[in-house]
């Protein structure tokens, strides 16, 4: 219920916000562009997974000091720890690095970003990498249009970075209305209260301006005109450091659990260092004075002292956090457990039944029937139909030929991974484990045959996946001939399933696995190539050449699907009476006999 109303509520709230404030519109658009940038960045890095970039990253981050150096260098070059953080999150999401390595990079980047404070304080210099956003987007898109996987990936990275900057730019623009309302003198306060209030202001200002550097410029300016006291300015720097983590948090929204853990570790780094510095402000001021005096900074040069403070803050953060990295990782894993995909597990296979042959066979049979049921659901939906079409009395020709709508498509790969493969894997393992306890060869044969059923079902699902693309295209095509051919494939697959359902129910005593021979004959008789129907359709220009190729390929898939299902049904739904089973198997037609029946039919038809 909550899930259902969540999305509409968000849309309503956003729409109301857009109507209420144009600034809100700009800010949210900025966030959206930023997140889109993160997605593009992640896709770009995915192209390099397993390649040179991954090897280089692994080599340069395989030890904590290497990760720290990597982060420090990257942030010094880019002049933005936030950017390094979001890129690290996308590295992590693409599986290029691990959580510990990511933490090292981010901690290093925090120290690296302090070089910016030195540049600002020392030379009044501000490196503005965001100026490259537009060219990045343009070059990025050109690269995306290239065929090479790596150029494409590089294009996504450039575009992603471009969008990140553009998003930050819009967020800043949106917040500009609030920016002018920050007047530091209004809050001038002494003591711990002052530290607390100015830290909060620093956090707020950094979130609004989306840059700790911008806050630092503000602080230095305010300090130079004595709008704030030196102590309050230091608290503002603490706030700026904490506030800058918002970009990483924002960036982690589109990432996997590891990315979120990394963003949280950045927040913990800054908050821990922040709390330590807030609580020990006086000793810290003393330390800053000592260090400043040691490196020759004048007593009243508060701007450079601010840079010293900024550096000490982040270096202390690293000193505090690095020894606890392993504990921090386990803590993060505990509070943010990985969300394992919902994987279907076996229900009937227990280790106890593996020891008793009859129980093991029955358990595998039940599980295989379950696998069959899940597979039938997938097949039917893959054919854009509902399971009710398989009712014994349903007229398949009428239903399928008249159904023009496509049922919402499913991701067959995902279903295969989560539902089919997992159960089949359990069955295979169970059979391997119980093989030793099978005393009689018959029992082992039965088990191995049931394993074959699973393989047939897996092959069928794969066939449906191949078939699905053209099936969706041609079953709603204007060309009636191609539509009919694809509908025929759907009808025939359903006919096999319908027959299997009747055999499985066992209500009709006259329908046994021998009825499957009829289906084998039908599949051969209706072969589009053998019957010359395909040639006729091409000759009479009723279908185009690409349609003909699709038909040829797909008719092979469809035949394999039917054959796999028939083979599987012959094993899974065979009579429970062993004597009857033997009799049925001895009368069932082999391939030559099936061909004889088909030839007879063709002869009669040509007479």
């Amino acid at each position: 219920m909550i899930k259902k109303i969540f999305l509409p509520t968000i849309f309503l709230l956003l729409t109301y916000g857009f109507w209420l404030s144009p600034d809100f519109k700009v800010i949210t658009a900025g966030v959206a562009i930023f997140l889109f940038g993160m997605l593009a960045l992640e896709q770009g890095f995915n192209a390099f997974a397993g390649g040179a970039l991954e090897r280089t990253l692994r080599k340069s981050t395989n030890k904590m000091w290497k990760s720290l150096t990597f982060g420090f260098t990257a942030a010094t070059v880019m002049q933005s720890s936030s950017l390094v953080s979001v890129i690290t999150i996308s590295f992590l999401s693409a599986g290029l690095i691990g959580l510990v390595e990511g933490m090292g990079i981010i901690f290093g980047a925090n120290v690296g970003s302090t070089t910016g404070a030195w540049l600002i304080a020392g030379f009044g210099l501000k490196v503005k990498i965001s100026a490259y956003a537009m060219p990045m987007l343009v070059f990025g898109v050109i690269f995306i249009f290239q065929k090479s996987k790596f150029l494409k990936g590089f294009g996504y990275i450039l575009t992603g970075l471009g969008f990140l900057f553009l998003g930050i730019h819009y967020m800043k623009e949106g917040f500009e209305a609030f920016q002018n309302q920050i007047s530091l003198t209004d809050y001038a306060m002494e003591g711990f209260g002052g530290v607390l209030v100015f830290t909060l202001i620093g956090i707020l200002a950094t979130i609004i301006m989306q840059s700790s550097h911008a806050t630092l410029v503000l602080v230095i300016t305010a300090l130079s005109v004595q709008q704030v006291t030196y102590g309050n300015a230091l608290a503002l720097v603490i706030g700026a450091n904490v506030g800058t983590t918002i970009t990483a948090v924002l960036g982690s929204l589109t990432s996997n659990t590891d990315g979120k853990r990394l963003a949280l570790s950045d927040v913990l780094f800054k908050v821990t260092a922040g709390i330590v510095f807030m609580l020990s402000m006086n000793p810290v001021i003393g330390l800053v004075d000592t260090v400043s005096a040691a490196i020759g900074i004048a007593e009243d040069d508060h701007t450079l002292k601010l840079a010293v403070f900024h550096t000490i803050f982040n270096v202390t953060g690293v000193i505090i956090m690095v020894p606890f990295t392993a504990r921090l990782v386990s803590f993060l894993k505990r509070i943010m457990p990985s969300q394992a995909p919902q994987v279907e597990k076996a229900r009937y296979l227990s280790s106890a039944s593996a020891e008793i042959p009859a129980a093991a066979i029955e358990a595998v049979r039940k599980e295989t029937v379950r696998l069959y049921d899940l597979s039938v659901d997938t097949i039917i939906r893959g054919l854009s139909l509902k399971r009710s079409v398989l009712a014994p009395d349903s007229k398949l020709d009428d239903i399928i030929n008249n159904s023009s709508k496509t049922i919402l498509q499913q991701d067959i790969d995902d279903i295969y991974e989560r539902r089919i493969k997992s159960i089949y894997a359990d069955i295979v393992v169970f059979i391997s484990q119980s093989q030793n306890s099978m005393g009689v060869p018959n029992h082992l044969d039965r088990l191995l045959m049931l394993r074959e059923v699973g393989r047939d079902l897996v092959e069928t699902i794969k066939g449906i996946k191949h078939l699905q693309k053209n099936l969706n295209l041609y079953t709603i095509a204007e060309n009636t001939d191609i539509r009919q051919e694809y509908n025929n494939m759907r009808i025939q697959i359903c006919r096999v399933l319908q027959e299997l359902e009747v055999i499985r129910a066992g209500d009709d005593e006259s329908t046994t696995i021998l009825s499957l021979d009829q289906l084998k004959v039908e599949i051969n008789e209706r072969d589009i190539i053998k019957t010359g129907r395909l040639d006729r359709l091409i000759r009479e220009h009723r279908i185009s050449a690409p349609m003909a190729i699709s038909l040829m390929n797909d008719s092979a898939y469809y035949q394999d699907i039917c054959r796999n299902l028939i083979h599987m049904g012959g094993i899974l739904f065979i009579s429970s009476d062993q004597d009857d089973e033997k009799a049925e198997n001895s009368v069932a037609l082999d391939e030559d006999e099936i061909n004889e029946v088909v030839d007879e039919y063709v002869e009669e038809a040509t007479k």
Partner: protein
Amino acid sequence: MNTNDLLNTVRDFVDTNRRERITKHESLKRLMKKLKIKQNLLKEQVKNENNKKLRKRLEEKIRVIKAQRKKGLKLLKELKSEM
């Protein structure tokens, strides 16, 4: 029961191969009967079916059952000669 019949019953019981063949023969015979019934049922359905397509399918089914019965009857004959 005369001596001959009694001897046959004892032989059926003692000879495992023969017993197996008899069981096989019996279940095959049962199956043949089932198939015959189904074939007749399908023939009836063909007579009453007006839809050309469906009639064709039913006729195909009959053809398959005939081939299966032919195979089964041959097997029955072989089993009987071995007994």
